């Protein structure tokens, strides 16, 4: 049985895979000369659509750098990054910015929200910057799921750390991005608030098929994911499928970190 394949002359064929994000030969060098640091060293990795992946590794192994390059926040020194069919490594700054606000969501460890805006304004900010209106039904659903209905008029300074992270997650989910990146989203929270945040991330994967990539140090947090990617010295150093806190801890010990 032959399926006609359409190709555009001059363009490489769109990568046919179920990966939401894919990196090939990704290398990142900070600085130059004597002080040059090789933060990523030829990383090949892909993240399945609708999957929840955790990135782990010792401090300084390049987790944040990998995430920034995948999310179009930083430019790679060499190698390629694909978000769906788009090659990020080719885009100019404005195109990257537009891609970030329409197709990528972020949750950071701290300083996620703009202090001058209230919770609602923070949540809709990327869509507003893109000049789009959130779908009201979807907005209500996200806000209800994150339990923020009563908090929409509050400024970040009037919210607890856990509430602030939930607002950040709502902001990340609202535009229905191709992928949500989270860099140590529970790093500043106590274990209970942390568990809440992780539950929310996992349920958004389970219930709406959201792709989530999360950097974490915490084996318990990693156990919420479907898969753990291990990083050491800027190189891939193994994977754990269907992780548990114990199996992740074992794998980390194996790195000697």
């Amino acid at each position: 049985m032959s399926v006609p394949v359409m190709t555009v002359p001059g363009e490489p064929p769109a990568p046919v895979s179920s990966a939401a994000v894919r990196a090939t030969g990704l290398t990142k060098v900070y600085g130059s000369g004597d002080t040059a640091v090789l933060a990523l060293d030829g990383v090949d990795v892909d993240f399945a659509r609708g999957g929840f992946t955790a990135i782990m590794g010792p401090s300084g192994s390049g987790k944040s750098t990998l995430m920034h390059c995948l999310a179009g926040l930083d430019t790679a020194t060499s190698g390629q990054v694909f978000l769906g069919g788009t090659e990020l490594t080719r885009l100019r700054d404005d195109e990257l910015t537009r891609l970030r606000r329409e197709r990528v969501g972020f949750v950071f460890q701290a300083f996620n929200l703009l202090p001058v805006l209230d919770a609602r304004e923070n949540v809709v900010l990327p869509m507003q910057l893109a000049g789009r209106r959130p779908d009201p039904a979807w907005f209500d659903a996200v806000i209800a799921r994150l339990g923020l209905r009563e908090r929409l008029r509050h400024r970040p300074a009037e919210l607890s750390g856990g509430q602030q992270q939930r607002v950040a997650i709502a902001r990340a989910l609202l535009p229905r991005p191709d992928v949500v990146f989270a860099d140590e989203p529970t790093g500043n929270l106590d274990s209970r608030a942390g568990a809440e945040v992780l539950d929310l991330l996992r349920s958004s994967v389970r219930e709406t098929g959201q792709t989530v990539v999360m950097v974490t140090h915490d084996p318990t947090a990693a156990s919420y994911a479907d898969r753990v990617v291990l990083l050491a010295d800027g190189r891939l150093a193994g994977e754990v499928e269907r992780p548990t806190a114990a199996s992740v801890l074992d794998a980390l010990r194996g790195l000697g970190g």
Partner: protein
Amino acid sequence: MLSTTLAGLRAHLPRLVASCLAVVLAVAFVVATLVLNETTRTTVLTAAGAQYVGADAVVTSDDGSSLLDELAVLTALDGVRAVAPEWQTSVQAVAPGRTGAQYLVVGAVADDPALRWQRLADGALPDRPGEVAVSERVGADVGDVLRVTATAADGTETSTAVTVTGVVDLGGDPEAGLYGRAWATPAQAQAWGAVDPTELRIAGRPGTDPQVLADAVATALPGSGLTVRTGTAQAEHRAGSMLGNATALAAVLLVFGTVAVLVAGLVIANTFAVLLAQRTRELALLRCVGATARQVRRGVLVEAALTGLAASVVGVAAGIGLAGAVSALAGGVESPVPLSGLSVPLTAVLAGLAVGTLTTLLAAAAPARAATRVAPLAAMRPLDPAPLRSRPGVVRLVLGLLLLLPGAALLAVGVAVASVFVALPGGVASFLGVVLLAQRALPPVVRAAGGLVARLGGVPARLAAGNATRNPRRTAATATALLIGVTLTTAMVVGTASTRATATAGLAAQYPADVVVEGLSGELPPSLLGRLGDLGGVATGTALTVAQPTGPDGQPWTVYGIDPATAVPTLRSTAETPLPQPGQALLPRWLADSWSVADGDPVPLTLDGRALSLRAGIVDDDAPLLLTTGDLAALAPGAAVGQLWLRLDDSDADVQAAVVDTVTDTVGSVVPDAQVTGVVSLRQQMDEVLDVLLLVVTGLLGVAVVIALIGVGNTLALSVVERRQENGLLRAVGLTRGQLRGLLAWEAVVVSGVAAVLGVVLGGVYGVTGTASVLGMAGEVVVDVPWLQVAAIVVVATVAGLLASVLPARRAARIPPVAALAAG
């Protein structure tokens, strides 16, 4: 610690440039003012006192009585080489190429060369009757022949033709431009009716001490009623009476200098806040490794002092250069302030250095205190987000209200009683109050303006509106600096426009006719009005007839007849020149009183057997007896034309002045002794003075505005530093570089726009009240707000604020989103 400071200075040099610029401008301003003031003083001293500088002693009569007797005594006095009596008279002279006569003040040339003070631009001084030297104002060259008409005390006129032998340069004498001057031999001056001298200039024998000579002279002339001074003292005495205006101007300029220094202080404080915020971690690290808070503070203050001193040195040089440029420019054109050369007093240099350095130190004190409060641990932490709220001191609020309310009341009283001496302290106090209260009042206004902008400008504008009030104290300081500059500029512009309008209206009322032609012998040919009306630039005119009927008291009175039909279109204002109706005689109150007639009473006039009874109309001011031409013709059928009133076309002052010259020449060719007076020259003089004043003052205030705008740029730079993470977050979640630049641009527009609009409103109030209090005494005050200029001030200040955001915005846009997420 000093080496760390110097290293810090080197590292932050580019940032420091902004605050240095503010210091340089402010210091340059103050120094230029002081130098110009001193230059004016010496110019006047050498120019106005020129005739006394060469003399060893001068005797002046206090009551104007003759000093001829003293002359004889002094010539015989031991130690006296020569005495020059000051023969003085005035004549009418016609220069070649002109038909109209001009007024000349004639003095005598001393016989002794030491007492000949006149500096010749050309030719030589006269040495026989029939020769004169003239000042440049006369417009004659060496070899020209002047027709001189002198009137003796008994009224007889003599006419002589004299040759011009030299042209005298009066230098910067403030009176040089007012009227022409001529110098003749003592004999010629006496022939032209010079009265007995009231001033004697004395030259001593070589080696005589002037003070000793002056004392000897005083002893030799025991009588009272005369003053003996040394030549230098006399020169200073005369210059002093002329410097009044220049000193007042210098005082005004120093006020503006103070304003520039104040604004610079606000800006410097903000700049240091920027610098220190950028270095919080550096300073904290210094604390970590063991520097005490005092050491850190001292380091910062030494840095401020060095910056201030360096900038002040540049500022002093710039100020002297500026004064030199102004002086050179003023030498070329006629300026209301006499200037020539440049005198740099040491005090100006020292004052400049002190003002610049101290202002910088004071301004840096508050940020330095804040910087030393930094906990050593801050080195380890990301920058704290800016405080959301800060509370301006209650002291400031109370003090502000205590200044504003009584100040405003005093200002209102000053306007009501038309006294600038009441209004001025009120204005100063209320403005200081405004400046103090601005800290509290501006943030809410900025917030409101931000709300407005947020609705117009999309997401970046909305964020900018929030950002503009994040740090109310800093926003207030930035906006206050601009507010001060804009307020004062607007006050000047509105004040000048209103002064001009008021003075123009006043002139129109006082001198309703542009040009008045009057025959000295009392008669003008009836055809003259027609000839003048045909001249280009003359719009219309009216002829006044004159006769001498006998009044009710049996005395002959000069009565004018005016034709209201032609007078109304000729006069610029009839406010103080009421016109008679047919059958009415307008007479001044004093005359009505002496004739014992009341308003509406019959006034009988007779002439050559004809009698006429008119209704009395009493006018307040010193007007002539006025009838309609028709009524006067009934009394005196052949009444001659006594005066012509002309109205000129509205055009530039110099065009009108040229028309007046043509009128003068035309009249002079028909009636040589006729007198032509034009208020055009008055209006022109006033316009010139106001224009120069406005130009100088707005230029100087412009400096304050420029300094304030540097402050806007600095504040934004500080925001960029403080909100590095936040801006990075915005970039991460999708704000483009352009939108980020827009964000800062909006913030600048909101802050500078608010300051500009409020400043213009305040400035308008001060301009109008100021004018009202200064000119209210003189009558009706005409308020004139030059809307176009005022709008231009708002636009310029706002756009300049926008420009000030360009550099910080570029800096912000360069921040990569990731770098911003990393701490610090």
